């Protein structure tokens, strides 16, 4: 039981890391290698506000989200839109996006170093045990899981019920056809990208309550997020949630029953195995 809960909680963390990228890659077709840096920026904001003014990270997210939204919207409009326009094919856009966002990740790390230095930022928030079914869990992780659940449920409902959400899903499925039914694809792509960035930054703020970050750690999160998104299937919220939970449970199971030294290796092995048997991920459509 406690393994199950531990795994689920870790899965929630992973969902926070990956959900934003899923929107960015699934809808806007931008494989954003600067995703992890956006997460670290969210985490840093939470750290700064908490240490400076004892502002709860859970309140910080209401500042982080709109700011990150605007920033990412600008990034898309200014930097990525021209690439989308000039790309002749999906493959070319992917290649350009990899290069651009890789450069962007450098710029963001550089800005963070310049502004805040390279030190670890680490603080203690809600680091006390909470008892669930007779076992101890970190309150901050449980809270993070709650945030992840709310965020995922919210996104899922919004994408499936609201008009804008449906339009975004239409773009995810087929930008060409979405255009034909009168959806403003560039506008929605920008919004989805911005929303993805906001979600990632919020995730970073929440995660910083229990993970120690520094300006250079972003790439680790980018890699995890990429793996989860690909495992779940591009452009499907359910897939990402499922993949995050599977990964969380898998790592916890391996850590508990086999050898904690193999958790990360097992995570990659799981990812590789899933890709081999289901190259399009859990919920993905066949890659074209």
């Amino acid at each position: 039981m406690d393994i199950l809960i531990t795994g689920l909680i870790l899965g929630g963390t992973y969902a926070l890391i990956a959900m934003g990228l899923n929107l960015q890659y699934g809808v806007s077709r931008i494989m954003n290698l600067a995703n992890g840096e956006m997460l670290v920026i969210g985490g840093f904001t939470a750290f700064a506000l908490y240490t400076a003014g004892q502002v709860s990270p859970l309140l910080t997210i209401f500042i982080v989200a709109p700011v990150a939204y605007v920033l990412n919207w600008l990034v898309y409009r200014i930097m990525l839109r021209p690439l989308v326009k000039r790309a002749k094919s999906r493959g070319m856009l992917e290649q350009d996006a990899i290069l651009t966002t890789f450069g962007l990740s450098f710029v963001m790390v550089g800005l963070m170093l310049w502004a805040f230095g390279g030190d670890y930022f680490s603080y203690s928030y809600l680091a006390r045990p909470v008892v669930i079914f007779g076992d101890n869990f970190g309150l901050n992780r449980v809270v993070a899981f709650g945030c992840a659940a709310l965020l995922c449920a919210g996104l899922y409902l919004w994408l499936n019920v609201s008009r804008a959400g449906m339009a975004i899903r239409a773009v995810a499925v087929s930008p060409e056809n979405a255009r034909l039914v009168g959806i403003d694809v560039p506008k929605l792509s920008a919004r989805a990208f911005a929303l993805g960035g906001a979600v990632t930054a919020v995730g970073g703020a929440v995660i910083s309550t229990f993970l120690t970050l520094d300006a250079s750690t972003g790439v680790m999160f980018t890699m995890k997020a990429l793996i989860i998104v690909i495992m779940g299937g591009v452009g499907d919220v359910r897939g990402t949630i499922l993949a995050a939970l599977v990964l969380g449970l898998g790592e916890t199971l391996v850590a508990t029953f086999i050898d904690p030294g193999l958790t990360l290796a097992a995570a990659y092995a799981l990812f590789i195995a899933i890709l081999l048997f289901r190259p399009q991920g859990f919920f993905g459509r066949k890659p074209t």
Partner: protein
Amino acid sequence: MKRRTFFKATTLLAASLVAGAAMAADPIIVGAVAPKTGPLAGGAAVTHWPNIALWVKEVNERGGLTVGGEQRMLEVIEYDDQTNPAETIKAVQRLATQDDADIILAPYSTGLNLAAAPIFDRLGFPQITSSAATDQIGELSAQFNDMFFLLGRSSDLAEDAVEVLAELREAGEIGNRVAMVNVADAFGIELAAVGKPALEAAGFELVYETSYPLGTPDLSPIMKAAKAAEPDAFVAWSYPPDTFGLTEQAMIEELNVKAFYTAVATAFPAYGGRFGAAAEGVMGIGGVNTASPAFQDYAARLEAATGSKPDYWASGMMYASLQILEEAIETTGTLDMAEVTQFIKDNSFETVMGTIDFDDENNNTAYWTVGQWQGGEFKGIKETGREGAVAPILKTGWE
């Protein structure tokens, strides 16, 4: 080189405000290479860079280093090696040949120092490492004559931690059951490889033992399993992110052992800052004599000058390495590095960490191995010849 003139202009401007007399002499060019980005940037930002800033500031405020009867200002050229040994090598080369550096400071971390060792050796520059812990000191100093080691042998660091536990056990304070974990990365593996046989040789019962990869996001399965094994002592050969993570998990799991040890970064001020009173009684790698006026004075100056607090392990050693270099240069009165190196080998030095004297293998044999958080400071409790060790206390819960 445009940059050089720019640097020169700014340092000279700053210098002239403090000591106008120094204008006459050419500055001494000090080269510094260490991570500002990459995985080790966080550690270097605590332990390495602030010391260089402090040293240069203080020396220049004094009017510079006296070389050959002439006071010369220091001019630093800093390079970021991105935690990449290839960049370290390139940057040291660049300092030596393009920037004509008079002094090159040792890089940061075991790996980067060793990558740079062949060039320092070829250049004939002394490389006083303050953040390299290795067991190959004999072989290394035989191959690289100019390489000095301040931080000691990794085996001592691990063995002494075990010794502290053994002493607590002999005193009847703790039982015989030890849970040991380690991060599966270079230094963590090395420490565990020494620590495990040491624990066994000391007659401890290893009730739980495992490793975990660097960057494990959730350490709770490990802590749960460790707790389930009901240990009397918990030992983790850990690295910065997981040192924090393991401590937090121990609090959450209410792992109430009487001896709790985490390795690298326990001595960081950020550790005490994050865990506050809960850190009381936590043991870790390193330590200093916090009661020594020299260290207290150094800590105060560092914070005043750079805004950052020293860590209680390698920071002081880093500053000591600069003091040694300074004394060697000023006493010999030359920038001839062969002479400076020989002076370092032949003499002993008074530093913020106490007297330092290198042995035949260029090793500083007296260093701190284990420290413990006591009353908001990380005090040295075990050493290989330092004064001021305090007695260890037992960990009493996490409140």
